[in-house]
């Protein structure tokens, strides 16, 4: 098995990882809160968030152009100096740990709420964490290759729901426009600009793995896939809202709820089981990518020779967090929809954007 630092990926594989990261868990988790907050105007909020995400790629790619071989922590060291970079990296690592735990917990909640209600949640949480740790241990190249068929099956499932739900759609549920003014749109924008579009800054840790000859294409892939993610989420929100109507905001995992409505004749029912598995594969892919970023960044920050030494300890801590963090589902929902977007903005986006600005100023003054 190769060490992490000797592994490289092509720009296309970067694209596969990035699309898994961006739409993996958001496809199933975003429509419900977006419709709950934004009502009939949720589509506008997601479109605005996608545009904001594309703007956010500007500092990410600028830093990548300036420090193409440096991992995120080294990049922060160069810009802020060792001590300040350390102060910024610790919350960054804690945020990644929290994020990985949230995704693993979300997979458990999905199964115990929908398909396997009598199975204890620790079964799903433990399996997710252990399999994600094994995937990370195999390395980024293996993950990129493995995620291609998984992503394909997820996209196929979403396309299937979309096509089969069209006859059930009622476009009039998208009206009226701005029924409660602009604040609900801003509330939904606040949520979606943190999850998933704000989270794209964390992906900057993966960029140094792209092969040197493919690096000039990385920007195009990232911009293209951010736009694609925005489009996919927009389509899913629209079909969910048009199919479920006013109930869409109250049904958790609303895309799965749409799949439950679908039946072809009287013989093909229960499609949601296949669709549910495909959708949750997306969450798993995102969990594995986040664990990879967390483990690699922690190893580089602590300057370890063996990049995989901490992996089991990090994964086990995350598993314990999934089992102890929340007493109720409402608490978890509050953490994800209210607190998490601001955590991403303050701990993820702010230091990276400032680092890009400082580098730009240094370079323009000839000090960089």
């Amino acid at each position, binding site marked *: 098995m190769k060490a992490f630092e000797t592994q490289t990926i092509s720009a296309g594989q970067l694209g596969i990882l990035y699309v898994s990261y961006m739409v993996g868990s958001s496809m199933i988790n975003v429509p419900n809160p977006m419709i709950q907050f934004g009502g009939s105007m949720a589509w506008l909020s997601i479109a605005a968030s996608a545009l904001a995400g594309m703007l956010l790629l500007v500092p990410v790619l600028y830093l990548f152009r300036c420090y193409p071989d440096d991992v995120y922590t080294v990049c922060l060291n160069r810009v802020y100096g060792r001590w300040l970079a350390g102060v910024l990296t610790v919350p960054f690592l804690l945020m990644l740990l929290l994020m990985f735990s949230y995704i693993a917990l979300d997979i458990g909640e999905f199964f115990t709420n929908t398909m396997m209600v009598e199975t204890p949640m*620790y079964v799903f949480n433990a399996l997710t964490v252990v399999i994600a740790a094994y995937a990370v241990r195999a390395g980024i190249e293996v993950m990129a290759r493995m995620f291609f068929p998984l992503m394909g099956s997820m996209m196929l499932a979403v396309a299937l729901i979309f096509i089969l739900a069209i006859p059930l759609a009622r476009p009039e549920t998208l009206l009226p426009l701005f029924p409660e003014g602009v604040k609900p749109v801003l509330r939904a924008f606040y949520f979606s600009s943190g999850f998933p579009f704000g989270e794209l800054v964390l992906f900057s840790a993966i960029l140094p793995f792209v092969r040197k000859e493919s690096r000039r294409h990385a920007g195009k892939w990232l911009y293209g896939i951010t736009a694609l993610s925005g489009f996919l989420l927009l389509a899913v929100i629209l079909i969910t809202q048009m199919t479920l109507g006013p109930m869409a905001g109250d049904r958790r995992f609303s895309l799965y709820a749409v799949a439950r409505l679908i039946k072809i004749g009287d013989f093909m029912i229960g499609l949601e089981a296949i669709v549910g598995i495909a959708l949750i594969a997306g969450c798993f892919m995102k969990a594995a990518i986040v664990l990879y970023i967390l483990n690699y960044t922690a190893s580089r920050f602590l300057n370890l020779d063996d990049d995989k030494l901490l992996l089991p300890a990090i994964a086990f801590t995350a598993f*314990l967090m999934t089992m102890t963090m929340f*007493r109720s589902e409402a608490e978890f929902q509050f953490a994800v929809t209210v607190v998490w977007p601001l955590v991403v903005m303050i701990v993820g986006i702010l230091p990276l954007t400032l680092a890009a600005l400082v580098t730009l100023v240094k370079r323009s003054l000839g000090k960089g």
Partner: protein
Amino acid sequence: MVERMIVLIVTGFALFVPSAARLKRSTPRERWMLAAFAAPIIYLGLMYVADADWVNLHDLAHESIGRMARLLVRWLERPR
């Protein structure tokens, strides 16, 4: 409680055993780094086994950034 302890042992076994060889090859500094993870693992493990409601990492986020987030969201959710 017994069920929870079994869950911990099985999950820990599945995670740590494949990396046992790495531990043997590691430097003393790396072993210290790894040992530092014992503190959160023991704390969270006790919390899980005892089903206790102690402070967790997300509480840290809630009590710091969460306060600002609540204010912002309250303003956005206030009716016109």
